[in-house]
């Protein structure tokens, strides 16, 4: 393995059009999910007179800040179905979008450090296999063979007792994913409008008929919200509530190193996960900061805690340096599953709640949300993730598969 050359930065990917006075549909939020939704609206449903409105620059929110882990080894049938569908789309998208965004299926390991972890992990491997998701249980020796720099000694605070492993999982270049979608959207006629913040909605009774923005009013028949950490703020403008809490989530990278880390290692129990980026940085993350926050920054002790865990698991990291840390705003739900579907406002649809782990879901979120916007009805894969589940009690509790993990 050697460090890889990144693709050349293309000169031109999309136009920067002025907003028109009306569109057939408007997507709020130009992150991965908004762009993927627009792409599938145009490609699968022939809706090309649409716009993606982004208040900042394209994909400068969580899409620019995530640690790019892609996997589908979730516990419940509903989650396995949508995340596995996403993984299958990731496998064909570089060709479909004609853009090599370096999707690297180097596998993802989720470590177990306690007997409880071991039982829960084995249960998840079983559930995954029944759902057609590639999953294996590794004993500590097999863990070491796959990732030689991992410390599997039993004289540490939380020894490695094994791991789940999904070989088809991996990482991709997040920015390039966004640009790949944006370029295709543009080719299909979608207007991508940056520096365009939605500040309110026009309604006719309970039906949305337009959006107010800092660049004027835009009339539209349908609105799809893809605003991640700001979903509650937009819902409030539209007059409804979402069961979402926005938290800071931080990550960091080291300086560039020779390739030492061949896979992706995550530990829910000691709160750290690590991969090595194509260029050579060690990329690390942990759990959310406990408090609600829209500041795109978190507290230092969260970083300190994750570094302590990282150094115990990977002793050679003790000599590395933190080069850069940053934070995003993640939209968490109480069952650690996303919300995709209709809203109390007619013709307004919402895709949010992907929280700490929505990068991996980008293509399936886009595909199914586009279906829901175009047809006004759920897609088989997003049906279970509708807002109604908080009233029926049919929650999809993925804390075991999603908690610290992404």
């Amino acid at each position, binding site marked *: 393995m050697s460090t890889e050359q990144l693709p050349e930065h293309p000169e031109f990917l999309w136009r920067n059009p002025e907003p028109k006075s009306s569109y057939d549909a408007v997507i709020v939020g130009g992150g991965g999910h908004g762009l993927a939704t627009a792409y599938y609206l145009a490609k699968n449903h022939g809706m090309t007179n649409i716009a993606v409105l982004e208040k900042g620059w394209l994909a400068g929110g969580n899409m620019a800040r995530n640690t790019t882990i892609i996997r589908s080894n979730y516990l419940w049938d509903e989650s396995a179905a949508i995340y596995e569908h996403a993984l299958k789309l990731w496998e064909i998208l570089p060709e479909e979008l004609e853009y090599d965004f370096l999707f690297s299926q180097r596998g993802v390991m989720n470590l177990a450090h306690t007997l409880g972890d071991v039982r829960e992990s084995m249960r998840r491997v079983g559930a995954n296999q029944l759902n057609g998701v590639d999953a294996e249980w590794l004993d500590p020796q097999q863990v070491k063979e796959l990732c030689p720099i991992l410390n599997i000694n039993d004289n540490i605070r939380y020894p490695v007792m094994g791991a789940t492993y999904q070989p088809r999982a991996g990482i991709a270049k997040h920015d390039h994913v966004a640009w790949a979608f944006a370029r295709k959207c543009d080719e299909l006629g979608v207007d991508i409008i940056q520096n365009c913040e939605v500040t309110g909605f026009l309604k006719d009774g309970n039906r949305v008929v337009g959006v107010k923005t800092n660049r004027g009013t835009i009339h539209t028949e349908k609105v799809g919200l893809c605003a991640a950490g700001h979903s509650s703020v937009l819902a409030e403008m539209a007059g409804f509530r979402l069961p979402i*809490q926005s938290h800071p989530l931080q990550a960091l990278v080291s300086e560039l190193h020779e390739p030492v880390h061949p896979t992706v290692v995550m530990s829910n129990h000691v709160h750290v996960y690590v991969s090595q980026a194509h260029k050579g940085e060690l990329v690390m993350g942990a759990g959310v900061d406990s408090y609600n926050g829209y500041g795109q920054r978190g507290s230092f002790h969260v970083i300190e805690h994750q570094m302590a865990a990282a150094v115990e698991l990977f002793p050679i990291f003790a000599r590395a340096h933190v080069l850069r840390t940053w934070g995003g705003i993640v939209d968490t739900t109480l069952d650690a599953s996303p919300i995709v579907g209709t809203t109390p406002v007619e013709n307004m649809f919402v895709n949010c709640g992907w929280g700490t782990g929505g990068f991996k879901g980008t293509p399936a979120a886009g595909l199914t949300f586009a279906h829901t916007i175009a047809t006004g009805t759920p897609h088989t894969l997003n049906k279970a993730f509708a807002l109604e589940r908080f009233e029926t009690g049919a929650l999809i509790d993925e804390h075991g598969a999603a908690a610290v993990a992404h």
Partner: protein
Amino acid sequence: MLLISCPNCGPRDETEFHYGGQAHVPYPENPNALNDKEWAQFLFYRDNTKGIFAERWLHSTGCRQWFNMLRDTLTYDIQAIYPMGTPRPDVTVPAAAESGTASTAADSTTTGDSAPSISASSIAPAATPASATAPKGATK
């Protein structure tokens, strides 16, 4: 990292505290009368304010007492600290800043590695002399 003034112990590092989410959410007065929609609101729905937010904190490794706090969720600036069971104090701030839907959100132009700038529409710390201190009579 937040520096939080516990009403009983004084200023302490955030790591000594536990977050308790939105404050002033009473248990339903007549639980038997609630339908599923109303239960969902009580169980799963909380305000997710961008701006000044009333929230609960527990000084878990200190006096182990709960208290309430007003904190700006965009700047993280602490506006007031007050006891459980007392109403949310009035913190005088510029009118435009109260709303999380203000049109020039400060984070729209920051990058991942810099702190958010404080725009005209967000709450400037200077405008809040009560910052990080408990209002009079709030402690004991």
